[in-house]
């Protein structure tokens, strides 16, 4: 691909496009302005055609059937494949961000192959909040989304309300239905080749102290602590910028080829693709590579028999670095001292000795080796038989087969004296010695871990669709179906020691030289899950005006014990197409529909066998100096365990104006009950031992409420301009309404090292809200402290002044009585904006996303005397009235590092996610050079982010479940890309 693979290197770092503004106001302004601009009242002259009619006749897949948008009674959002493709993003979930109201997508990691958290209408559970994802009828793990090529996707439909209940016990988090590309009937074979290639850089580096600033501030810090100053000379220049060495420019590329077409009986679509992305941190040490193959075949075997066959093959390969945690590469990068070089005079990596748990991030990257490979086949064979035109019987077999192979090589390394990550005995990389029997010691050298896992899902589904028109006005549809699903997984893993030469070249279990194989060890696991379901949907419509739909699904799940294995999930929905009424005369608004739905769905996403007490706890003791395994009860049993249920009410309005504006509004109220919890239980139950856990119980309620708006506008102007604009916004509130009895709250993420609990699940607050002390400035003088009505033990001038929340005149550090809510990771408002304009072959498109009102915990600072700091620390307190916002610097014992709002920042942001300029060759000209079509473009991702947040990236998801959201440990940021692409139709 050299002919077309040109890299464009833009010195983006220098032309730093970051802006720090009062983001909330700006974004609100932008939103209001945009809404105002596209309000239907604005009359746009010279219009020619509108796409409203086309839009409402669109057919969407709604689960075991399809529906016209106009007739659909539920709340959904549908997207066409092109709008995803255009974003040039490696993962479907990334491409969905900001495109659909009510769907919040946060990046859990910006590293290649890193995941996202997809939340449809908020966080509703303590456990698994991932929606059910169905690709061509096949259930797909959200973690497995890496395997899908966004280019293969024809359409995405998100079922947000109770009509998702057709999927029963797994529908409570919403359902995303994805269809891959299919051919069209009577179309000549068409080959399309497309691709892009580009470079990525970090969109931002943090403002950290340089060597001179560092030395000056550290001297002050030590002097304030009564210790000798570490730097005699503070004129050290700028020193080492660890960030400049850690962040690199990395390539990204993607190529696709597809063939599609059809005869009058058969349609086909065949495709292949290759994608590769290196990491902006770590290059090939944090990379992702993917090969896809796809065959869709749809054929009429006879007038009554149809065969529909889908096969998707994927091979992925990923490498990753330690990220998003204490000790991750970026955490070390942020805290590394600018006064130390990366390598010493002999060329060896330096040790950063002054902080025991900070290691040289470049040494860390050099010594990280891991690979994970996935081979995956997903497909279905679907055979349908039409008894009559209106009665079809469909049988299908869906499968999802995946092999996952992991390998990690851990060489003998020495990061410096006392570093926890050392695997060698000393800097000569001598192996450690292990006593394997009394008096017998053997060497423990480099290790390699290998794991082989396989997962096999089979799903057999049968359903009958029936439709009958009765007279002119009545129409009845019904669908009755059954589904049986099984999932099996197996794993075998092993670790082998003493890999020759401490070299990755021999990193394979077979190469181990461990004496007698003594140290080598193996493990395995396996699981089985089963689901049996029966479902019925009946629909009735009258005169194309009134639509009514009722769904009931009964599921039996092996996740639950015999006491509560089966559940029934009903829902009902209706819509009224008002413009069909005789009295309706507003010709400027030719489409107006009202919808209402209510229903119940479930969530069974918990570990298998949680209802049983298994002896899988850890009962290990040392006898004869040898670690000896016994047994202990693992999780305590709860035979009455059942699924969570979510009752959801949705009320919606759809508008279609004559001038091309479409608007959809939804109000929802989603109440989740019987949350699956593993709360604290009394110590008397004995679940505090190693590997023992409290039982999973049903307790707790969560309420999500919100309003969603989706507006779109498309117009073709006479002068050749064509424009489409889509806007969406979501307001959401989340509150925990009940926690298990006897439990005040469920603690979540911790702050700092060994520090306080910073996030909680607690009644009356959003899930994962931040709890800590509220600051009221900085104590300026001793006099102020002495005269204060509130006593804060140990306070000295320059320390943070905390607020006495409970009003007892004392700041209580030994209990929670002076802590309160100081933030929430859940945005109040999210907003997406898509814009396309084309004129005579040129096209310009932009995609923006904003999230407003969420907070982020700054947890990447190692609060240690020698750790590097943000430049904002230069504005520290140095004497009375120097500042009222930043505390003094000192090594002495203070309470400034307890979790308070000082460590909480506004995480609101507006991001220009994609900007693209393209040119499409005139079809006639294309023909002259033997092509049907040709388009070339330049695109940029994450070009601009407006935020006040100081960290690398404000778009941070969760690395630790529902309670770990919004905690920044030095998040691996999403890259800023510049790409050049093309698309050729032969």
């Amino acid at each position, binding site marked *: 691909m050299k002919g077309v693979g040109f890299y464009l290197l833009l010195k983006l770092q220098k032309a730093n496009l970051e802006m720090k503004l009062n983001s909330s106001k700006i974004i609100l302004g932008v939103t209001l302005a945009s809404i105002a601009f596209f309000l239907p009242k604005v009359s746009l002259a010279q219009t020619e055609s509108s796409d409203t009619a086309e839009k409402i006749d669109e057919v969407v897949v709604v689960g075991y059937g399809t529906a016209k948008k106009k007739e659909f009674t539920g709340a959904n959002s549908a997207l066409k494949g092109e709008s995803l493709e255009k974003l040039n993003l490696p993962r479907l979930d990334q491409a969905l961000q900001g495109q659909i109201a009510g769907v919040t997508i946060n990046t859990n990691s910006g590293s290649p192959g890193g995941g996202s958290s997809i939340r449809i209408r908020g966080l509703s559970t303590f456990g698994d909040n991932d929606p059910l994802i169905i690709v061509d009828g096949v259930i797909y793990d959200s973690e497995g989304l890496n395997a899908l090529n966004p280019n293969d996707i024809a359409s995405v439909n998100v079922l947000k309300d109770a009509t998702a209940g057709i999927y029963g016990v797994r529908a409570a988090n919403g359902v995303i239905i994805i269809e891959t590309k299919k051919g069209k009937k009577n179309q000549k074979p068409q080959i399309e080749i497309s691709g892009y290639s580009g470079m990525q850089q970090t969109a931002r580096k943090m403002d950290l102290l340089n060597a001179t600033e560092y030395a000056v501030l550290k001297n002050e810090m030590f002097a304030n602590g009564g210790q000798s100053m570490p730097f005699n000379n503070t004129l050290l220049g700028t020193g080492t910028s660890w960030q400049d060495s850690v962040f690199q420019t990395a390539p990204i590329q993607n190529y696709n080829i597809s063939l599609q077409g059809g005869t009058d009986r058969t349609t086909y679509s065949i495709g292949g693709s290759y994608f590769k992305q290196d990491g902006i941190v770590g290059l090939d040490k944090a990379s992702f590579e993917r090969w896809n193959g796809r065959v869709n075949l749809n054929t009429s075997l006879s007038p009554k028999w149809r065969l529909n066959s889908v096969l998707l093959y994927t091979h992925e390969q990923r490498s990753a670095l330690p990220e998003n945690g204490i000790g991750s590469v970026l955490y070390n990068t942020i805290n590394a001292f600018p006064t130390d070089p990366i390598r010493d005079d002999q060329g060896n990596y330096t040790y950063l000795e002054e902080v025991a748990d900070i290691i040289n991030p470049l040494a860390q990257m050099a010594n990280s080796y891991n690979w994970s490979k996935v081979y995956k086949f997903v497909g279905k064979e679907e055979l349908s038989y039409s008894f009559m035109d209106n009665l079809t019987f469909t049988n299908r077999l869906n499968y999802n087969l995946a092999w996952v192979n992991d390998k990690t090589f851990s060489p003998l390394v020495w990061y410096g004296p006392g570093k*926890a990550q050392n695997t060698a005995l000393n800097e000569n990389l001598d192996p*450690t010695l292990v006593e394997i029997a009394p008096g017998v010691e053997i060497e423990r050298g480099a290790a390699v871990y290998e794991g082989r896992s396989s997962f096999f899902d089979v799903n057999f589904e049968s359903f009958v669709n029936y439709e009958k028109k009765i007279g002119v006005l009545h129409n009845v549809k019904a669908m009755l179906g059954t589904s049986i699903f099984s999932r099996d997984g197996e794993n075998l893993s092993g670790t082998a020691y003493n890999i020759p030469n401490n070299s990755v070249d021999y990193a394979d279990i077979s190469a181990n030289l461990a004496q007698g194989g003594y140290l080598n060890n193996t493990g395995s696991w396996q699981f089985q899950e089963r689901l049996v379901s029966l479902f019925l949907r009946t629909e009735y419509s009258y005169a194309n005006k009134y639509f009514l739909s009722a769904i009931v699904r009964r599921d039996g799940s092996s996740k639950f014990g015999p006491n509560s294995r089966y559940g029934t999930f009903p829902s009902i929905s209706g819509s009224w197409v008002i413009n069909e009424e005789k009295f309706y005369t507003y010709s400027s608004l030719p489409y107006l529909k009202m919808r209402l739905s209510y229903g119940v769905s479930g969530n069974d996403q918990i570990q298998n066998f949680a209802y049983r007490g298994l002896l899988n706890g850890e009962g290990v003791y040392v006898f004869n100096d040898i670690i000896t395994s016994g047994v202990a009860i693992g999780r305590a049993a709860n035979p009455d365990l059942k699924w969570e249920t979510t009752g959801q009410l949705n009320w919606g309005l759809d508008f279609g104006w004559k001038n091309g504006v479409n608007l959809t509004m939804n109000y929802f109220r989603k109440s989740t009950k019987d949350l699956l919890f593993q709360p604290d239980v009394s110590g008397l139950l004995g679940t505090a031992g190693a590997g023992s856990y409290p039982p999973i119980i049903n307790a707790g309620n969560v309420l999500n409420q919100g309003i969603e708006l989706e507006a779109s506008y498309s117009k073709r102007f006479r002068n050749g301009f064509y424009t489409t604009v889509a806007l969406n916004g979501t307001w959401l509130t989340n509150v925990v309404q009940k926690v298990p009895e006897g439990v005040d709250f469920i603690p979540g993420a911790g702050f700092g090292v060994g520090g306080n609990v910073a996030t909680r699940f607690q009644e009356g607050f959003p899930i994962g809200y931040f709890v800590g002390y509220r600051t009221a400035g900085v104590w300026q003088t001793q006099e102020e402290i002495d005269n204060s009505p509130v006593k804060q033990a140990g306070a000295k001038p320059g320390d943070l002044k905390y607020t006495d929340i409970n009003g007892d005149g004392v700041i209580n550090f030994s209990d929670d009585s002076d802590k309160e809510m100081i933030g929430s990771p859940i945005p109040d408002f999210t907003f997406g904006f898509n814009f396309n304009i084309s004129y005579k072959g040129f096209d310009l498109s932009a995609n923006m996303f904003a999230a407003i009102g969420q907070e982020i915990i700054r947890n990447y600072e190692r609060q240690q*005397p020698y750790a590097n700091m943000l430049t904002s620390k230069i504005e520290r307190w140095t004497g009375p009235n120097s500042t009222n916002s930043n505390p003094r610097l000192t090594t002495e014992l203070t309470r400034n590092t307890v979790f308070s709002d000082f460590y909480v920042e506004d995480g609101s942001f507006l991001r220009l996610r994609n900007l693209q300029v393209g040119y499409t060759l005139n079809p006639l000209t294309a023909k002259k050079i033997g092509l049907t079509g040709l388009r070339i473009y330049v695109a940029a991702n994450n070009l601009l982010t407006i935020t006040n947040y100081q960290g690398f990236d404000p778009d941070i998801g969760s690395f630790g479940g529902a309670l770990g959201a919004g905690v920044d440990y030095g998040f691996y940021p999403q890259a800023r890309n510049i790409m050049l692409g093309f698309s050729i139709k032969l």
Partner: protein
Amino acid sequence: MRKFGIYKKGLAVIMAFALTNFGCQKFLDVNPLYTQDAENFFETPVDYQRALTGVYDLLQSSFITVWIGEIASDNSIAGGESVTDTEGLHEIDEMGHDAVNQELRNVFRWNYAGITRANYLLENQNKIDFDGKDKIIAQARFLRAYFYFELVKYFGDVPLIVDKRLGADEVTTVDRTPKAQVYAQIESDLKYAADILGWDAAIKGEVTKGASLSLLGKVYLYQDKFDKAADVLDQVINQGRYALFNDYKSLFFVANENNAETVFDVEYSGAEGGSYGCLICLEGNAAPGFHGIRQYNGPVYGDGNSYNLPTQNLYDAFDATDIRRDATCLDIDAFIAKQPNSGNIKYAKGAGGHSGFYNNKYIKRQGEIGLPDNDLTSPVNYRVIRYADVLLMSAEAHARSNSPDYSKALGYLNQVRNRVNMPALSSTGNQLIEDIWNERRLELSGEGHRFFDLVRTGKAADAISGFVVGKHELFPIPRVEIDLAGGTWKQNNNY
């Protein structure tokens, strides 16, 4: 005719649905593979042995007693990286602890986890019969007694659950059991263990008759049952199989583990790493790493987290000629000054406090590091009961008896002093008792006994600043545990 055919087919389809769905009930009966269920266990002798190993596991929580037993007393300060680093210990250090304290909650929960595992085994003790079952039962009862004794020392009255596991619904029906009843159960368990177990452990690490009698003696001493204590402790002494190890300075080295002075040890291994997130999951001893010298890069010792730092007060309590002083308190600056190239040796003072001393008994030493994270795990065993302790307990029991035997008491005391070349004492009466108590401090400091000795002997208020009589003798029951048990338990006085 054709129409009928269609309906017939339609009916067949519906029948098929019904069959797949209702015929599939069995399909959902999936059982966990290769895993034993808690309810179908104890089928073979090996099952019993493995369940017993699960009970032993909880002994490895001993590090928390080494911390609290010292930090709560006049022997140590909490130390650590900052005042919020294991905050619960700092609160205990200042006698500022209340019912919200993670470390006290750990004590409560870990000991009940051990009790629950013992009860699980004992609940099933009659399922099968085999040779050697009584020895397994005896060990389980010993361990249960040990865990209950820990709880009584910390909390006083605690719910007594015997030979059964508690269901989640039953939790709210139990109340705190008067201490005397708990002690009665402890005594009965230990007497049983002492009867069944032999003086020699079949496998290194198993508890013995000597351990059972010594712990029983200690339990009696804590109840001021001096005659009974003297009786059982003398049985241990007179058996003649235990002796004081000659070199006190290296007594706590891994190389000298399980010597003749060992009566009851908690066994550890450094061969498996772990994470700070789950200290109870470790197979190594967490205390030495936490006690280690912060960011130290010199000889002899490894580095660590500067917890549980001995006070000047403790250091000064020793005679300058007493080798136990430096074997107990490592004067870090003095030590470094004596090393070659001392100018290059660095360590850091934690912001959680610095006394100038480190706990030199349980400390990270080079050559005793754990793998793979040498900060965290250590192979150093915790000496729960040493023979020196047995001698001092017996001495105390004889001296405080209604019919005191001062010469016997003095003899035991002087055996302990003689080992470290300290001159023999010749006191009698109350002075002798005071001397024995003082000797306990000199001999056993840094090992987690001091606070409980001070409380037991009524000396806590004098020795510990901030100690409130009538309150601090017991720790508060963690409030969350009271809540989770239905909120009806009465809290200890003045908390």
